């Protein structure tokens, strides 16, 4: 597909990178020539210098033959006007990134289609929602939800004392009976595999599990974690992500403290947030963190713009005894490091944006894609049509690539965590977990 990306910032860069790797033709439009030079040297994409709000510039970028326009600059108005300029082009899906809560919240007044926008995405809010879900399932390192939360795909690190450590999958199935929990992937020493019955689980393994929402407490128990009830959370940083999270938490009756280093921003957020204690102070001020009881919090979320500050304050919080520490990390290289030094989970604006956007990229039967920080694997959700070769045969007989697994089946209101003798039916939604090398083969199994 030919894709036009407006905005060569962090989000634009990483979305373009992902799309380019998936063999799409990507053209990036931006006003900053220097940034475009950098991109040309790093990515296999074309660039056009100019404003994304200009029809002429967009046409130069090949808008006429494009199937997708991604307006992802960090200025909402530019993104909206960009989609508006492209309104005349038929058969084009227009995605606008919008961060301003006023634009995003007030859909009564601002209908996306008034601007010719097909999809509004808000990466900052997505990240806040993801953080919220991570906080709620205390031990998880990654989380993706499908079917409105009925199925969750969770990532965990197996602790030393975990009841499942040292057992193979076959043993587990025998001892635990048929529970709606499925181990879909296992990451060990930097490589991800789809496990077989004979695979044994060791402490330190990074597991990806699908489970019905009501089975999550038991899965946590097997993994050696307790499901805990989040009562007090501390957030650092005055970012938009922090604002969204601080708005979300009190709605779930969580006592929230927000620590912001910039006086002006602290004042601004204090005026806009209700039931949140806003503090003015540095996120790495150990004395202040301790005074405000960071050790007694159920969750500590570092959301400042600087990775170093986030990692440092997370370490302070972890050492003081915060139960679950979530760290915002922008630089990809820091993510394994963050895990190595004992931080519980990392979130990344780049990844949130990519997830929010990639969901709309692949045409056909794909409805939702989730990617994970720890590995290159993807979770993809397909609509099953009656032309699929998988329909009507038990899964163990079906010709599914070894590097992939059907993680869940959603049939009407019910959720099936499948075993070998389950079958797919036309009309189902199948959630498939696949390693990168198998993504194309899996996609072919689900013709639209």
């Amino acid at each position, binding site marked *: 597909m030919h894709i036009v990306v407006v905005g060569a910032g962090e989000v634009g860069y990483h979305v373009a990178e992902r799309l380019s790797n998936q063999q799409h033709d990507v053209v990036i439009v931006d006003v900053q020539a220097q940034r475009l030079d950098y991109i040309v040297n790093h990515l296999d994409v074309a660039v056009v210098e100019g404003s994304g709000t200009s029809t002429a510039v967009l046409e130069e970028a090949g808008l006429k033959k494009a199937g997708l326009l991604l307006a992802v600059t960090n200025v909402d108005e530019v993104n909206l006007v960009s989609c508006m300029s492209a309104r005349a082009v038929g058969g084009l899906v227009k995605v606008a990134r919008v961060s301003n809560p006023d634009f995003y919240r007030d859909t009564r007044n601002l209908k996306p289609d008034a601007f010719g926008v097909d999809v509004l995405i808000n990466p900052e809010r997505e990240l806040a929602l993801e953080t919220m879900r991570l906080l709620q399932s205390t031990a998880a390192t990654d989380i993706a939800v499908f079917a409105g939360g009925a199925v969750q795909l969770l990532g965990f690190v197996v602790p030393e004392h975990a009841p499942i450590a040292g057992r193979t999958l076959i043993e587990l199935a025998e001892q635990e009976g048929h529970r709606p929990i499925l181990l879909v992937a296992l990451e060990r020493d930097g490589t991800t595999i789809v496990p077989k019955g004979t695979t044994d689980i060791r402490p330190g393994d990074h597991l990806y599990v699908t489970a019905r929402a009501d089975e999550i407490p038991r899965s946590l128990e097997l993994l050696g974690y307790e499901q805990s009830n989040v009562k007090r959370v501390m957030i650092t940083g005055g970012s938009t992500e922090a604002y969204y999270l601080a708005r979300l938490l009190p709605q779930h009756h969580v006592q929230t403290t927000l620590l912001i280093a910039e006086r002006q921003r602290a004042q601004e957020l204090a*005026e806009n947030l209700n039931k949140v204690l*806003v503090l*003015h102070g540095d996120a790495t001020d150990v004395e202040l963190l301790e005074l405000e009881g960071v050790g007694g919090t159920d969750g500590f979320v570092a959301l400042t713009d600087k990775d170093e500050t986030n990692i440092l304050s997370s370490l302070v919080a972890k050492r003081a005894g915060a139960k679950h520490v979530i760290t915002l990390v922008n630089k990809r290289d820091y993510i394994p490091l963050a895990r190595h030094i004992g931080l519980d989970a990392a979130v990344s604006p780049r990844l949130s944006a990519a997830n929010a956007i990639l969901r709309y990229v692949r045409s056909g039967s794909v409805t939702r894609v989730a990617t994970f920080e720890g590995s290159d694997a993807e979770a993809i959700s397909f609509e099953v049509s009656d032309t699929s070769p998988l329909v009507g045969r038990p899964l163990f007989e079906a010709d599914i690539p070894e590097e992939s697994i059907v993680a869940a089946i959603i049939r009407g209101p019910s959720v099936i965590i499948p075993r070998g003798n389950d079958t797919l039916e036309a009309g189902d939604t199948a959630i498939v977990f696949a390693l990168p090398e198998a993504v194309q083969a899996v996609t072919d199994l689900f013709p639209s």
Partner: protein
Amino acid sequence: MNLREILHIIGALLMWTAAAMAPPIVFAASEGLLVPWLVTALITAVVGLGLWRLTPREVSINPREGVAIVGLGWIAVVLAGSLPFIITGTAPTIPAAIFESVSGFTTTGATVFPVIEELPKSILLWRSITHWLGGMGIIVLGVAILPLLGMGGAQLFRAEAPGIPSERLRPRIASTARSLWVVYGVLTGTLAVIYLLLGMSVFDAVNHAMSCLATGGFSTKTSSIRDFSSAIQWVTILFMILAGTNFTLHFRFAMGRWMSPFRDEEWRWYLGIMAFCWLVVVASLVTAGDELLTGELIRRAMFNVTAINTTTGFATTDFTLWPTLAQVILLGLMFMGAMGGSTGGGFKTVRSGVVLKHIAGEIRKVLHPQAVVVTKLGGRAIRPEVLHNVLAFLALYMLTHGLGTVVLASLGQYDLVTALSASLAALSSIGPGLGDVGPVSHYGIMTPMAHLVLSMLMLLGRLEFYTLLVLVAPGTWIRSGGDR
């Protein structure tokens, strides 16, 4: 400061006051009081016309002049309003006449007359008219009707309207003022009709409706509302609550925004506090005495609590005989008063709420030294200037109340409770106080000097201090650059 421009507008206000004397004159003829009433109206009209004609036509008001117009205008109007009491010979002394007029225009409802039924109907009607005009504000009425006030209208409006400035109902100040008066008029008319249907005479219905919607308190009976039927009393409770509500909310409600009052934070406090006080007073009446919990007792408690809270000052019982707890509750309500933007007086619910929230914020700051604390009202941050104004207002309120108490006490024959509650009842425009000035008593027992002191307190409370204080502040009367 241009005194001539100010006098021009005061002339207009006096002519309006003369026009407002027309309805009582209709009654005056049959009471043999036609001559004194005509003399009164004539004096007022001639002085007004004189000021109006002898001053420049072109009027442009700066903020300072706007405040001076409201302050001096009120003084001129209450003096004109006292003329009927003097010239018809109903008031015993001139200070008593001034007291009665001020009490009327400020919607206090305290009276110097021991037996109301002895007064001529023309005087009774005049008392109710002063209430009604003062309730929504004579200046607001002026802004609504007189286009000549022009750009300065907003200054005048702000100087007279009580409470924290809220949003304008209409883009133009004159249409805002008109909308408020229409809402006020419709509510008054509605209550008068309900009273008629419940069996009041036309004269009583009109007088009580005007008095009630203005949160005044003057009645045509010495016993106030006590001897009317229970249905009338219930209706009065309801309309007192409406009169103590911010008229902006009435306006929005009438415009079809039905949920608007329920979303208003101040309105929820106002009703919540009132309901709480109803419960406490009922409980205290039942537990302290040998009374049984009857519908009559509940109505009596609710009526008098509401009358004090809304600063109306009607009464159906002698609450100076209530248990101490109930009396203290009344004293607290006298201080707090009704909602901002209503016709009621007092410190105002909204200011009380803001002060309490600010205190909670200060406590938070002690617990969390680095906390960024923002005091909010209805989800919106209150600007620091507004907060400072409210705190200064609190200090002024307490200070003036204290000074008033001291001065009244220095005049001799009043006990502590009387001096304290009379000072507060005047400042908050309530009417009846506790002690010797309770609801079955009257202010005729006080000396002429005390009448003047209380008149001053009533005006200060109604105009919320600043408007009057600037009149005596140094610098107010300096000529500014553009003045001729």
